[in-house]
């Protein structure tokens, strides 16, 4: 494969790929994401391959194992193109029928399509299914069309055109300007304006700079980063290279979890293929810009998702955060300016460059632009990854996309941001998905995990659960976090065990004041957030748990 050395060569290659792809040729897209893998979709894939082989259809039908489609609850999911017929909960024994009826016969198989549990309505096509219909899948939508191991698939949907535009038609400053105008805010939980971060790094002294993809995704209940990085790695890679060009970096890092072998494999293949095509490495696209990427794995701890801890880990030390008197964009890995952004943030970059900042900023609210990937989990009917524009109300997400609460239970609260986030009660469900709005309510959006809690959940127990998690994950460096979390956990455990005492709530609030103000890093600072938000909206639950302890005799006094 000869390297691509100019924009025109890239377009020629793209045209070439598209010309041999017949848009009417049936393509069976089977979701090979992590959720479906766990539902034995491997057998579905091999069953399809066998059947196509048996019926001698190899030349006429394409089988594609794609990245995560998003509808994890109904896996294994299969989409038949070009009609975009979507079959859910497919088993190997359905395969012969699918091949003969749908792929060849163009007929829809009734018992395999999605049925709305509330209305009984059936939806044959992907775009008709409520789960997908109510989303705006401008980043995630391509997942159903791309085999992550094939770079041609990505090129076929227009991939790397943003890279070519940036490197060959724009200056680094223009790229940063565009990202600033689009008001791209970090998707990892901080919501910090990416353009500003890039600016700082670009203007920081020093010739060696680094860019990093934070694919750690430690937030429990969040799995959309893995879905997008594993399903469409090139989209993230493209964004990374553009960012590197913008700040003047020639070395990039992808920091991923060690416990997702499929993810690592897909990243490695993507890097190799991109290098082969001249889209990575020396003299990318003939522009004179060099850029290399290394992959690093973590060692299984939550705190290594924190930016300064992550950088320490890349250096080879144990991940321990440091106080940010000097930002990591000025002094990061080996004290060089380093831009760390979340997977989703990087995936938004090619979109901004291709379609322009104005287009991008037309979606969303006044201060939160674009779309957000959310992972729905907990007591919800449709678990999966959804992409919605900022401004969508939480109610729309939970009921319109999520399908509501299983077993006919009532909704109690939605928890954002995992162990460092907060909950909002049912009464606030009409609030929009927005960085600042949710932060005001004490439940910052975090990385995008939405844990849905039904009426049977004890909010006191939820707060205790998250503190338990953090107490194991605290690095132990600073006293407020290490000791504060331990003491709060002790009090909460006592309350949960029915041993709560008068004054416990006030004590918890006092301790959380200290940890919030004096901790070294975000883990300690936000450790008490789940507790505080549950106190804010569910204080009566705490009070009843404590009141249970005071025996009648004492009350008589």
């Amino acid at each position, binding site marked *: 494969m000869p390297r691509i050395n100019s924009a025109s060569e890239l377009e020629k290659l793209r045209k070439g790929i598209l010309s041999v792809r017949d848009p009417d040729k049936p393509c069976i897209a089977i979701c090979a994401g*992590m*959720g479906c893998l766990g539902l034995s979709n491997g057998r579905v894939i091999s069953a399809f391959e066998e059947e196509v082989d048996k019926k001698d259809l190899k030349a006429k039908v394409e089988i594609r194992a794609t990245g995560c489609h998003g509808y994890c609850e109904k896996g294994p999911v299969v989409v038949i193109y070009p009609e975009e017929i979507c079959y859910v909960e497919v088993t190997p024994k359905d395969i012969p029928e699918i091949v003969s009826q749908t792929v060849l016969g163009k007929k829809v198989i009734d018992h395999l399509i999605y049925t709305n549990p509330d209305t009984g309505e059936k939806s044959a096509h992907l775009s008709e299914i409520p789960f997908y219909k109510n989303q705006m899948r401008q980043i995630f939508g391509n997942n159903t069309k791309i085999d992550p191991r094939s770079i041609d698939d990505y090129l076929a949907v227009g991939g790397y055109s943003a890279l070519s535009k940036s490197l060959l038609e724009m200056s680094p400053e223009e790229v940063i300007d565009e990202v600033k105008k689009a008001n791209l805010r970090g998707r990892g939980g901080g919501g910090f304006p990416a353009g500003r971060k890039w600016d700082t790094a670009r203007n920081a002294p020093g010739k060696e700079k680094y860019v990093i993809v934070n694919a750690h995704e430690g937030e429990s209940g969040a799995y959309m980063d893995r879905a997008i990085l594993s399903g469409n790695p090139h989209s993230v890679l493209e964004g990374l290279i553009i960012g590197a060009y913008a700040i003047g970096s020639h070395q990039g890092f992808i920091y991923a979890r060690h416990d*997702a072998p499929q993810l690592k494999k897909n990243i490695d293949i993507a890097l190799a293929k991109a290098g082969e095509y001249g889209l990575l490495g020396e003299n990318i696209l003939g522009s004179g810009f060099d850029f290399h990427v290394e992959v690093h794995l973590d060692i299984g701890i939550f705190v290594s998702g924190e930016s300064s801890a992550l950088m320490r880990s890349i250096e080879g030390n144990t991940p321990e955060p440091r106080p940010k008197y000097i930002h990591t964009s000025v002094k990061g890995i080996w004290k060089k300016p380093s831009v760390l952004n979340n997977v989703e943030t990087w995936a938004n970059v090619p979109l901004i460059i291709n379609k322009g900042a104005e287009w991008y900023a037309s979606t969303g609210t006044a201060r939160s632009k674009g779309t957000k990937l959310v992972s729905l989990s907990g007591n919800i009917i449709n678990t999966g990854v959804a992409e919605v524009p900022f401004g969508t109300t939480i109610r729309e997400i939970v009921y319109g996309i999520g399908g509501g609460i299983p077993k006919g239970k009532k909704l109690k609260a939605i928890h954002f941001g995992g162990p460092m986030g907060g909950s909002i009660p049912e009464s606030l469900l009409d609030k929009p998905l927005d960085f600042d709005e949710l932060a005001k309510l004490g439940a910052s959006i975090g990385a995008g995990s939405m844990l849905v809690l039904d009426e049977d959940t004890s909010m006191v127990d939820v707060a205790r659960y998250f503190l338990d998690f953090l107490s194991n994950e605290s690095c132990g460096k600073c006293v407020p976090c290490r000791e504060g979390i331990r003491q709060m956990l002790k009090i909460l455990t006592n309350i949960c065990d029915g041993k709560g005492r008068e004054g416990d709530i006030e004590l918890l609030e006092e301790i959380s004041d200290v940890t919030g103000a004096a901790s070294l890093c975000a883990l300690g600072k936000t450790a008490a957030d789940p507790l505080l938000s549950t106190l804010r909206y569910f204080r009566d639950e705490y009070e009843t748990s404590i009141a249970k302890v005071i025996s009648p005799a004492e009350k008589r006094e």
Partner: protein
Amino acid sequence: MAAGHTFEPKILGFLCNWCCYAGADLAGVSRFQYPPNIRVIRVMCSGRVDPAHIFRGFATGQDAVFIGGCHLNDCHYVTHGNYDALAMTYICKKLLEHIGLNPERLRLEWVSAGEGIRFANIMNEFVPRIEKLGPLGKGEGLDEHELRFKLEAVTKLIPYIKLVQSERLRVPDKTEEVYTEFFTGEEFNRLFDELIGDKLALSQIMALLRERPHSTGEISAKLGLSPSEVSRHLNVSARSQNVSTVAVDNDSIDGIINKHQGKADSLVQVLLEIQHKNQWLPQEVLDRISKKLDVPLSRIMQIVTFHKTFRLIPKGRNDVHVCMGPSCYVRGSTRLLDSVQDLIGFKSGEIDPDAKLSLETGTCLGCCNLGPEIIVDGKHHARLTPDKVKDVLKNYE
């Protein structure tokens, strides 16, 4: 009585010079009859008697030990040594219980110099009692070998027990009520189990292993401990280097270290690679890494005990992992974990005696649509309820 061999108990007696010994002497002079099974050693104060003496007595063939002292608050010495004897006896009785011997074999009585008849009466009651209990060990169903190693285990532990007693099992006031209340109370039992019980089990395991290698199942049967407890003790002693477990060979360790040019910075990478090869990190391996990379062992322990990736217990042939992330949690993963633990008989972080299964819990792996789930050897078993657990686990050999 009947002809033939009848059991004649051998009783060792420690009698205090001022009261009990005089009392026994008076019994003799007054011709009060009592069975002659007791061999008397005269000590100046009952408080002089040490657990080591008692267990040496048992180890050398005595069937019972008798301690006689002055009445409480009448001790000849200002230091009230008889209270010390009282405390020591409580502890020794518990020790006897723990190793499966009848605590009645140890007897403490207060006899004053003028109570000759009391001494004779006690002997007349004590000796038939021991006759009924039978020879030491045999009477409780222990064979000679078992008895020997159990007594050995206790004897080795005595210096530690005395330390624990002087630091944690002190009683503030020397009055009978306070002593009785403390030594028959909850707290004493709890402290004993916490401080001594574990070490005693470990000491017995060591005594067994000193003779020859044993399997976990054998140890569990001989000591009456559950396999999970045995494995827990073994882990503790493996970590303190007393017990050696199968390890990856030194050459491969050196090879991995050399690959990283022996740089101390690459400690984490070296640990990850060795872990990947050997599935877990035995103590000897950590020592070798410490030596070769010139990194203090404390630093290595800091890293391996903090990060969950590193295993310090061996992996079973099948690795069972229960997800305890928040989504699985609200869907009932705690109940699932309980049912798994009930079924396999041991807790997370441990391994069963035949190394068939090891169990651990972890936080969110990101497959929330499959929750609550358990993952065995990387294979997901999704959407489980406690009743389905048995069907899943029985397939694993």
